[in-house]
């Protein structure tokens, strides 16, 4: 990538920035003495785990922290003036005009009741003082710049009419409205699928080349850092750990924490020679000493009978409109999905949001009722089972969900949460108490934590509790639905290792639903790739990752950011965009699909283009 670094005066110069929040007990310092420069045309990455203070840093620069509960000291020099000493009115002229911002959640960062055109035009009306009509014209041009098709027609649409990727484009257009000198992007791609993430990153880079903006790019993803940043500032617990050119950070990290952070990033392609899943090496955050877990996951015996067999699974959701609930279409969430899992085997379901992988998991669990197909668990058919038979058979298949904050009852002690499946199963009370303690120890917590409430635990610990709950009734199969997606890298590594360790110990089978290709490569024996409700490719991990056959699989793998700034990116234009949708008119039947064999354990859908 070519860029000319302006070595002269920095655009933005932050010196000894410290911020404290008021809490019940007094003032707590959340960031300490942060200093950096940002030049025109340069991208500086602010990287760290959740709670490291990277977002607080950006909000402190913009003076957007809640007034009255925040204290900020230091200097934020922009064009020679210290933003921290401006009056609120002066600051209003800086925000959105000189310095603009994009946020993480495109789904919640746009106002749901104001039209896109209004929101796009707002910054212009505020800072340029132009009329509504002029603002609309400009808004249309902005939408075109971020490559939203049919821009004029979409101005009167509302945010809920847009997909996540499209909303993030709208956010970017909004931020660019007044041609800001500095763009602060706070995790702008974290909530997006990898292919959409790749598009947004490319778009940002292109716009930066045109405008020569300085970008402060906040992220926790080292892969994204390697791809976008000229320089990188690593933060840990509110402190600056180190700040250096990105290549140097990766090639020659000086601090232990940086080293730990980089080495804990799952890397795609690191498993090429391994016959079975392998636990991640664990790096200590303070000392950067690496250790390899002392267990191994066994390869699966191909002669063994499958424990879970899914055949021709189909789940559709009707869309009804109007007074009499007329059927206007169906969401074809899962179409003709077949796979099986043997004892001790992990099958990963990968694909982007909306591809039907979660619905597949829920259909297998019978949390939603599939319209057709069969799910056999240990030889017994689950589709069509009555309530009590279903309750019995669910002891053999349990689920771990994505959000460890939402999937535990906040008013119930974790011990009771873990005990619940056993109470449902009708176990003896004393036995249950004993087993709750055992389970907590097994997932790396201690027995006495059973009496605590979920809010007393961190995200990683809560996910351990959820895993303990899933294990309580000694299931044969665990369905892990994006179970590590919400966690920080270092925690993610620990939880993935825990799942693998439990699998090795109990010969658990796992249906691992994830969009994170690097983690999938690590944990899976076999992988199935889903697109628009169908499996497009399924096979052994080696087959999928070393010789992907289907065009969508290739696109998915190519979009994964590589945590190595030396690797040149060569991305083909996306053929499978985020615009395709699984809603079809009533009576629509998907075409009959056939699959070809691409290897001993490798099936690829034949598509006619």
């Amino acid at each position: 990538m070519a860029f000319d670094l302006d070595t002269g005066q920095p655009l933005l110069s932050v010196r000894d920035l410290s911020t404290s929040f008021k809490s019940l007990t007094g003032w707590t310092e959340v960031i300490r003495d942060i200093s950096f420069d940002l030049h025109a045309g340069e991208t500086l990455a602010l990287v760290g785990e959740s709670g490291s203070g990277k977002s607080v840093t950006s909000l402190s620069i913009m003076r957007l922290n809640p007034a009255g509960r925040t204290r900020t000291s230091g200097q934020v020099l922009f064009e020679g003036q210290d933003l921290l000493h401006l009056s609120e009115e002066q600051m209003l002229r800086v925000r959105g005009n000189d310095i603009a911002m994009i946020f993480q959640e495109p789904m919640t960062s746009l106002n749901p009741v104001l039209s896109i055109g209004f929101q796009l035009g707002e910054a212009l009306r505020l800072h340029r003082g132009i009329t509504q009509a002029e603002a609309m014209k400009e808004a249309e041009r902005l939408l075109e710049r971020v490559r939203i098709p049919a821009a004029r027609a979409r101005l009167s649409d509302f945010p809920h009419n847009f997909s996540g990727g499209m909303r993030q484009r709208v956010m970017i257009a909004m931020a660019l409205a007044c041609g800001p000198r500095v763009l602060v992007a706070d995790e702008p791609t974290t909530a997006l699928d990898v292919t959409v993430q790749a598009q947004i990153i490319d778009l940002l880079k292109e716009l930066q080349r045109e405008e020569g903006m300085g970008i402060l790019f906040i992220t926790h993803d080292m892969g994204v850092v390697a791809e976008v940043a000229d320089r990188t500032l690593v933060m840990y617990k509110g402190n600056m750990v180190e700040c250096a050119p990105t290549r140097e950070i990766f090639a020659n990290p000086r601090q232990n924490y940086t080293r730990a952070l980089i080495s804990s990033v799952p890397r795609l392609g690191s498993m090429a020679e391994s016959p079975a899943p392998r636990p991640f090496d664990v790096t200590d955050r303070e000392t950067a000493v690496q250790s390899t877990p002392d267990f191994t996951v066994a390869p699966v015996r191909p002669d063994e009978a499958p424990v879970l067999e899914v055949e021709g699974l189909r789940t559709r959701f009707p869309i009804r409109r109007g007074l009499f609930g007329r059927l206007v279409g169906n969401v074809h969430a899962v179409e003709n999905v077949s796979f099986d899992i043997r004892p001790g085997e992990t099958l990963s379901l990968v694909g982007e949001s909306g591809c039907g992988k979660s619905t597949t998991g829920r259909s297998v669990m019978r949390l939603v009722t599939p319209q057709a197909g069969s799910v056999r668990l240990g030889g017994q058919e689950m589709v069509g089972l009555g309530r009590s038979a279903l309750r019995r058979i669910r002891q053999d298949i349990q689920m771990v969900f994505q959000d460890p904050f939402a999937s535990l009852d906040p008013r119930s002690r974790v011990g009771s949460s873990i005990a619940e499946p056993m109470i449902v199963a009708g176990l003896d009370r004393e036995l249950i108490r004993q087993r709750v303690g055992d389970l907590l120890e097994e997932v790396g917590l201690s027995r006495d934590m059973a009496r605590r409430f979920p809010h007393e635990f961190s995200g990683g610990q809560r996910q351990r509790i959820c895993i303990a709950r899933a294990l309580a009734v000694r299931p044969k199969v665990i369905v892990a639905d994006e179970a590590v997606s919400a966690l920080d890298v270092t925690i993610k590594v620990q939880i993935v290792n825990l799942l693998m360790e439990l699998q090795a110990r109990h010969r658990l089978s796992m249906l691992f639903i994830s969009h994170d290709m690097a983690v999938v490569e690590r944990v899976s024996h076999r992988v199935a790739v889903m697109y628009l409700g169908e499996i497009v490719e399924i096979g052994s991990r080696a087959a999928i990752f070393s010789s992907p056959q289907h065009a969508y699989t290739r696109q998915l793998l190519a979009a994964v950011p590589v945590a190595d700034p030396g690797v040149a990116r060569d991305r083909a234009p996306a053929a499978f965009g985020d615009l395709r949708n699984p809603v079809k008119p009533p009576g629509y039947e998907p075409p009959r699909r056939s699959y070809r064999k691409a290897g001993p354990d490798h099936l690829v859908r034949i598509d006619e283009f």
Partner: protein
Amino acid sequence: MLGLVVRRVLAAVPVLVLVGLIIFSILYVAPGDPAVVIAGDRASAEEIAQVREALGLNKPFLLRFVEWFWRVMQGDLGLSVFHGTPVSELILDRVGPTVSVMLMTMLFSVVIAVPMGVLAAWRAGGLTDKLVVGLAVIGFSVPVFVFGYILAFIFARELQWLPVQGYKPLSEGLWPWLRSLILPSVTLSTLYVALIARITRATLLDVLEQDYIRTARAKGAGQFTILFVHALKNAGVPIITVIGLGVALLIGGAVVTESVFAIPGLGRLTLDAIAMRDYPIIQGVVLVFSFSYVIVNLIVDLLYILIDPRIRY
């Protein structure tokens, strides 16, 4: 958008029919035979039967309902037993004062309460907030008649700025009309000011925490724009709901209100009709009240669609 409105309006039709059926049934089973009343105290059984025949009171229930509903739809609510004039005329005569008090009360409540709630949410935890919340508690808990008497004592008796009671129609001039409405409206609005201010404050507090508010601030929008453009519209649905409820309560409360302030509206008409067992009037007024509930609900639903583009019926 238009299709949506039409669908929602059509959905109100079966509700109106059902309401009509219920009102008709209640009067059908109500004690006291209208034929006996109309025929007079000294009528023979035969005369009563004749009256019954003449009024069609011996026809089957459903047939009577259909005939009655058809007439109602044409604006024919029957004749008042006492006055002998059409009920629809009587109601039309009395609708003005009731609607005036209701609209004035709601207007007053909204104009005072919404900015109060917004201000409280903006200054949450501060002195302004505490003041607003405190006033709301007083508004909730002081009985309307106490407050009414205090106001009447100060402004009507001592200062003599306003009439103690009574109503002047708009045809007598804007100022006399307004003057006659101020006391009852202000008194009645205390409860609604409290209610609307609190719901505005609570909803807005929630909305102000949302990500899109931060986005608006990052754009450089000032406090006023944030509060009244970005936040208030998002808080609109619960606020409109409470206002709608308030209007409905005011319609129902007219019976009490109008006797307290001596306003010759529908409430008074009802009271007089009950005293004289003038069934056609009672039926007519109840029907008008019920239909206006349905209409208020319809308006509230249509406002939802207008405020929140995500709401679809």
